[in-house]
């Protein structure tokens, strides 16, 4: 009997008739029984030595995976020529002061970073920064853990804009590691007062519609101040970034 069949038998993932056949064979075959015992012992050994926990941690945090993917993903800003500034931007993200992948990703599990094109190239914005119509904004996200995510924004006119994923019904996969900018820049329009960006993440896959519906409900009751949070199910986490609009 091959290893795959035995492994699937132990995991109760054989079709019923095949499982019954294997069970009958195991019952009368000491060698098969010994192999099953060895698999159980191996499971125990791998758990005891922490290898399964290590595997889980590595998959969830991307440890060992290449961190410097920002350079290849930033590319051009598409709306304007921005290559030189993009190189500076990448350097700031990947090799900025006090950086090192592990230091950089402490704190909040997932966060938004916003950049704005400027005469000097680009600038990293702070939450609550003043911005105006025509500003070119590049939204980026960063996560400690492998998860699913959606990015939307609500502006002072109550318009909800979807930023990530670009299409499809399911939330995007978010790999852990350094900041990942969205593919295109976003030009601020003449909506008044503010625009707030929301990054919603979850450990399990979820639909974009959940976030869009929540954003629309929040937008409908927003007044002069942007909603701080979206009314989401408890299993979803959120973080936001505010831009204050000036004339």
């Amino acid at each position: 009997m091959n290893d795959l069949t035995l492994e699937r038998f132990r995991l109760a993932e054989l079709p019923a008739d095949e499982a019954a056949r294997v069970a009958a064979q195991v019952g009368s075959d000491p060698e098969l029984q010994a192999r099953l015992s060895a698999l159980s012992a191996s499971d125990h050994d791998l758990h005891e030595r922490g290898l399964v926990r290590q595997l889980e941690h590595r998959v969830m945090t991307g440890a060992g995976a290449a961190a410097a993917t920002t350079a290849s993903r930033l590319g051009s800003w598409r709306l304007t020529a921005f290559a030189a500034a993009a190189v500076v931007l990448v350097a700031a993200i990947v090799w900025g002061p006090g950086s090192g992948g592990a230091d950089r990703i402490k704190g909040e599990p997932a966060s938004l970073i916003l950049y704005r094109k400027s005469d000097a190239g680009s600038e990293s914005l702070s939450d609550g920064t003043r911005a105006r119509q025509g500003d070119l904004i590049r939204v980026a996200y960063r996560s400690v853990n492998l998860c699913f995510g959606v990015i939307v924004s609500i502006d002072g006119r109550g318009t909800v804009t979807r930023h990530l994923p670009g299409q499809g019904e399911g939330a995007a996969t978010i790999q852990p590691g350094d900041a990942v900018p969205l593919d295109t820049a976003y030009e601020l329009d003449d909506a008044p007062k503010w625009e707030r960006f929301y990054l919603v993440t979850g450990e399990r896959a979820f639909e974009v519609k959940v976030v869009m519906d929540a954003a629309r409900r929040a937008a409908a009751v927003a007044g002069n101040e942007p909603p701080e949070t979206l009314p989401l199910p408890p299993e979803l986490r959120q973080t936001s970034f505010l831009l204050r609009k000036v004339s």
Partner: protein
Amino acid sequence: MTEALDVGELCRRYGPMVIRRCKRLLGDEAEALDASQDVFVRVFERRDRLDGQFVSSLLFRMATNVCLNRIRDRGRRPEGHRAEEALLFEIATASEAAGGSDARLMLDRLFGRHPDSSRTMAVLHYVDGLTLEEVALETRMSVSGVRKRLRALRATLKEMQ
């Protein structure tokens, strides 16, 4: 598997099987752990395609494919005398069947089908000892389809020898 995918739970439940599989093919535990990480990340990325397959079966085949790629990328024949190691190296470095099969594979990809590689089938049959029928069940192909793919791969192996 179209409902929510709990990657942590997947690792805990299937991790030992995947690590064992990778260790058997690669012969090194540290490299097996690296390869196992690749396997679970791939499953996560391809979660939309997990259309009702038994997860254990899929993970076993994906682990096989990941390990074959690593064996191929080592670029050197194994120095030991284990026949299985030598066979794995030959399979890993064999090319997929050329000509008409390439066209079929392209059509499969266009229509969203993702058949297992001939190399993975070869490992299941020649290394793991699955019968052609068992390989066909695992890969959801016909027996004749499996036989054709293996025959084409064997021809490639013979050319290399």
